[in-house]
């Protein structure tokens, strides 16, 4: 793939394969290996090369900003968005569960009024964690649900309102417009209450995750990312490109289908898992 020297090419081929198969993408892989070659020319030890590679990868991650944005004047609104089937609804419940355990008062909003049994799904989860949920009937305007939810959040003095939204293709103009409307409605009713826009990405997704991230950033603004399904065999390497190019922090990861399978993202743990 890249300009190669003939010395010990097998290791470099091996590294290229590991990075590409981790879904890092061609661009990141090329940059990382080129930088690595500059640093390790004198070193022959495979162990040292891998350590240098880990350092090189870590250098692409942001240094801070991984905690959830909150508010000194609650409620803080968290908007959960992403393409179809990535894990938004379950992640909404996981985040609510975590925050509640930490002592916060939570309210949920079921603004997916389009997909079959979406409201029921979040309803069952909200009952399970004993958190209230704002909903309208099937087919209602999602922005209206959100409007009611922020009003209720303010009235009830909750710490966090987490809004689950419908899955959508990021290239569907109407659906992206619908998200913008939700944002406008929240911002105009309570300026500054929207503290966190979380984009949910699926670890099994390949290069399209970068396209998704770019589109959601451009249309809505994104303050943090959740990567789900890291309990599978996919490595989720696309997040290196996302942090590097878009400078958006991965804040949480989903590691299973239980409410507890939710962790704060740690770049060091992530990078070392690439070589397991």
């Amino acid at each position, binding site marked *: 793939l890249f300009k190669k020297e003939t010395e010990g090419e097998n290791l470099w081929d091996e590294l290229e394969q590991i990075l590409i198969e981790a879904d890092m993408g061609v661009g990141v892989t090329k940059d990382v290996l080129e930088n690595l070659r500059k640093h390790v020319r004198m070193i022959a030890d495979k162990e040292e090369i891998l350590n240098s590679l880990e350092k090189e990868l870590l250098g692409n991650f942001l240094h801070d900003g991984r905690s959830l944005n909150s508010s000194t004047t609650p409620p803080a609104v968290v908007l959960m968005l992403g393409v179809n089937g990535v894990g938004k609804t379950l992640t909404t419940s996981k985040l609510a569960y975590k925050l509640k355990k930490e002592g916060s008062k939570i309210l949920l909003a079921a603004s997916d009024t389009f997909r079959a049994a979406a409201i029921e799904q979040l*309803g069952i989860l909200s009952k399970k964690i004993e958190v209230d949920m704002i909903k309208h009937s099937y087919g209602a305007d999602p922005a209206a649900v959100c409007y009611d939810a922020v009003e209720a959040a303010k009235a009830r003095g909750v710490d966090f309102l987490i809004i689950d939204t419908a899955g959508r293709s990021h290239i569907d103009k109407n659906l992206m417009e619908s998200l913008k409307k939700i944002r406008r409605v929240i911002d105009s009713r309570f300026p500054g209450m929207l503290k966190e826009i979380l984009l949910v990405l699926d670890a099994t997704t390949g290069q399209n995750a970068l396209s998704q991230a770019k589109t959601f950033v451009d249309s809505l603004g994104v303050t943090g990312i959740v990567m789900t399904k890291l309990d599978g065999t996919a*490595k989720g390497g696309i997040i290196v490109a996302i942090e590097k190019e878009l400078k958006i922090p991965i804040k949480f990861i989903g590691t299973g289908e239980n409410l507890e399978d939710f962790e704060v993202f740690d770049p060091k743990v992530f990078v070392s898992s690439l070589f397991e």
Partner: protein
Amino acid sequence: NLTDKLQTIFKNLRGQGVISESNIKEGLREIQLALLEADVNYRIVKEFIESVTQEAIGQKVLNSITPSQKLVKIVNDKLIELLGQNASPLNLSSTQLNIIMLVGLQGSGKTTTCSKLAKFLHNKGKSILLAGTDTQRPAAREQLQFLGKNLGLPVITEGENPLDIALNSVKKANSSGVDTLIIDTQGRLHINDELMDELLKMKEAISPKEILFVADAMTGQDAVNIAKSFNEKLGITGVILTKLDTDTRGGAAISIRKVTGVPIKFIGMGEKGEDLEIFYPERLASRILG
């Protein structure tokens, strides 16, 4: 796009009349990048480029008046061949009850695809019963009930556990004289032995005509592992690639087809009941090449 890039590589030499092997290698590098960016698996890309190299260097591209077009044609034809050459229909009996099981990872689109497939076959004159065996996901059975109701098709979701529901649905299908039973299953990881075994037990109990692997078209490099696992542990007879209404290139299709040898039969092109189309290799081939 790829054709433009290749034309740039080759046009500087057109005047001189001779294309060198190194020019072709440069063109092949562009193709390799395009396929990797399209999520085709790394090792499959390597193998693919090697086979294209043989053909390209073996005079075909060297002697061509339009080398970039010739190279693209070789690649395009090889991709179509890899994807199965032609559309592949469902393997259905006209005399016995046809049982179709949909399986796959979490969130790939199985439940939605069950209802799309039901609509597709119903429009073709089949009588359908839908079965919802996902007892784990909150409101999974309600989801299928809702979809079935919208289509005016019967849905069965009663039973103690997934296998029980599946067996109930076979009984119901036979007693009500339906000719096609479509079974929705819970999303699961290919590395969850217990859940993969549950699927195998269901297969052994009901002998489905088709086991369709429902895969998300935006799946990355891991597609080979997932598909291989489902095929080896369960055995699949067809693939449905969903969410091709996005801008994902869909290279996972190549990986899945190559590693299982199983045909892709349908693609999902949206969230609605009519958004299911028959899979045509040539359309996906040009999409993957970008």
